[in-house]
């Protein structure tokens, strides 16, 4: 796992450097839109608790100084499909955000939703060398986790220690300094297709910027949309995006599961387009203005002009009732939610103490979705909007921006990852130069 350490730590160092310089961009590469926020870190509380396990890099105090959104191109199902198109879209968003911020940005933290995320629960245990648990013991127990075969061409996106157990006590957050003999940890690891990450890195590089971090969209929208008690007691965040619906389960402020359903709002749009024989743009517009999932008697009388540009009067003056539109949309939305339900069941969500479900993302704005979702997912469903952050424009406060806002929080308050801890000394290659340097540092 040394290579993983290297690449992730390189990105982490870059992120730290960017935050030190004070400006970093956050990029949400979605299927329907690409949004870019420019953050300025004003330095309050920066590195305040650098030694703590809970908040390793403890940065806070940032402000959004630039925000821009553009229609996404070349992205399908949350994955980059046409590089040049995506690159142009990223360029548009970044340029507009830079213009608003009036500053040039060189580092970018990006997130995407697709690329088939897969969750693994890892467990490791180790005997403690001394009397009390030290930093080195934590490094050792983390590297003692038996890594499953994640498959060819897969990359680890997140690897977070979720729980520590010392002797017979479990549920420790920070075991350092405690007395014990035997230390065990549970770790959550999220892997994605490596190609997707490489494509994203390439696109960002083509925009003359450096990729300083990658996040999973499901994870970061969970950070943004779940409130503190939900994160603590157990909740699932469902990010209904354009190309895919991401879901992440949180308990004790840690993500323990993340997955992605490869159906999203774009499929609803294409259903409408096919059902009503209208172009995609019109279908999108009709969906946004008149969409819904619960039909009432009133909806039979509300007629929607579909329009058209064929020149055929009959064709161009067609009208559909809103009930018809709802009749097209509902099965697809139900399909998405049922798929999500299946993933939640597979993850064992019904064993959690609290089974709060939060719907966010652009798709959660469909009127009547909460009623439908509570019928499929369970009684405790609410619609979530992202946390309010400093300086965010009003236009970017909707649920569609949950992952963008989540990326801001992720950049400001990153959770501990595996690679935040030093590689245990015995894992270094023999006669390593770094070992000599470490010896010098320790002894002089």
């Amino acid at each position, binding site marked *: 796992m040394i290579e993983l350490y290297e690449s992730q730590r390189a990105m982490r160092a870059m992120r730290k450097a960017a935050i030190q310089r004070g400006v970093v961009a956050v990029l949400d590469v979605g299927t329907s839109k690409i949004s870019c926020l420019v953050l300025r870190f004003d330095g309050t509380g920066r590195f305040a608790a650098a030694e703590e396990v809970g908040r390793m890099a403890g940065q806070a105090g940032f402000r959004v100084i630039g925000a821009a959104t553009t229609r996404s191109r070349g992205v399908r199902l949350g994955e980059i499909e046409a590089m040049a198109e995506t690159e*142009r879209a990223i360029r548009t968003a970044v340029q507009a955000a*830079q213009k608003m911020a009036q500053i040039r940005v060189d580092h970018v933290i990006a997130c995407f939703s697709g690329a088939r995320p897969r969750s693994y629960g890892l467990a490791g245990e180790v005997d403690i060398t001394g009397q009390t648990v030290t930093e080195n013991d934590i490094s050792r127990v983390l590297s003692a986790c038996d890594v499953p075969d994640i498959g060819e061409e897969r990359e680890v996106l997140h690897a977070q220690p979720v729980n520590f157990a010392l002797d017979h006590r479990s549920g420790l957050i920070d075991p350092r300094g405690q007395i014990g003999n035997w230390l065990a940890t549970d770790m959550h690891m999220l892997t994605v297709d490596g190609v997707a990450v490489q494509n994203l890195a390439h696109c960002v590089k083509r925009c003359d910027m450096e990729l300083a971090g990658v996040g999973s969209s499901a994870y970061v929208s969970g950070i943004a949309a779940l409130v503190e008690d939900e994160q603590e007691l157990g909740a699932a965040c469902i990010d209904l995006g354009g190309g895919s619906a991401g879901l992440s389960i949180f308990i004790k402020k840690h993500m323990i599961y993340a997955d992605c359903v490869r159906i999203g709002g774009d499929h609803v749009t294409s259903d409408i387009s096919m059902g009503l024989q209208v172009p995609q743009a019109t279908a999108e517009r009709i969906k946004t203005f008149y969409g819904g999932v619960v039909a009432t008697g009133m909806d039979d009388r509300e007629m929607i002009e579909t329009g058209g540009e*064929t020149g055929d009067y009959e064709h161009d003056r067609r009208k559909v009732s809103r009930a018809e539109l709802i009749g097209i949309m509902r099965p697809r939305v139900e399909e998405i939610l049922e798929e999500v339900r299946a993933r939640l069941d597979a993850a064992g969500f019904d064993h959690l103490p609290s089974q709060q479900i939060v719907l966010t993302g652009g798709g959660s704005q469909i009127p009547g979705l909460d009623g439908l979702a509570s019928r499929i997912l369970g009684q405790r469903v609410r619609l979530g909007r992202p946390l309010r952050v400093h300086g965010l424009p009003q236009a970017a406060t909707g649920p569609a921006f949950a992952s963008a806002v989540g990326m801001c929080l992720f950049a400001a308050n990153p959770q501990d990852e595996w690679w935040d801890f030093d590689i245990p000394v015995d894992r270094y290659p023999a006669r390593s130069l770094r070992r000599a340097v470490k010896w010098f540092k320790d002894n002089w």
Partner: protein
Amino acid sequence: MRPVIPRADPSPSRLRYRLERMRLTPGYRRLTRLGLPLLVVAGVAGGYLYDADRRANIADRIAEIRRQIETRPEFMVHLIELEGASAGVQEDIHEIFPYDLPASSFDFDMAALREMIEGLPAVARAELRIRQGGVLRVAVTERVPVTLWRTRHGFEVLDISGAAIATVEARTTHADLPVLAGSGADLAVPQALDILASATALKRPLRGLVRMGERRWDLVLGDGRRVRLPEREPVRAVERVIVLDRASDLLERDLVSIDMRLSTRPTVRMSEHATEEWWRITRASGLPAISSGTETR
């Protein structure tokens, strides 16, 4: 009838993107906002001043404005007010004053002026100040003449520090001042004054003091007899002479000089006539003769 609207790609081209980024670079922004205007201003100014005639013209105009300000009546000095200076010194100061009044006070070099006035022999210290109303006030502290020093060329009037104030031809010009002589006498004027002050108790006319070998004094009495004083504590020696005089009428006797240089052994030299008289008396009375002409106490 379908209107064909070509949708332009909203994304910037790579070149435009890069240019925009360059324009947003802090260094570039600083350059355009501060550097370029400065460069333009510097260029325009430099181009204008490149011509030597224009430079001279500007310098002339500045000098003219400066002259106008300096010659305003508020800055002109019309009068010198001398304080504490005797008539002769006043005349001297007026003579050496280098400026033609009225003159602008900007032209005055007060330090040099002060040095010049203090350079006059009769002036110990001078304070200069330009008062309101265009008056240059000069407060002069003059040197006080305390003694005359006779040299080859005549008499010099000295003050307490030994500085020569003036040269006089005749002793009578300053009849009240004591006379010193000998080279190096001007370097020990205070000591000489002390000796003279104590010597007044002799109640005899004094001619003056002679500096011997630039280290000690000879007190010369009015009839030319000398009292040789030691290098150290000459005042004490004078007092001893006074005591001797009171006790044994020393100065009434026929002496040429009294040597007080060795405090344990004051010596007198008798005159030739007195010596012969002494020999005659001793030979007549059969007392043993003394070979030398000295007497010890």
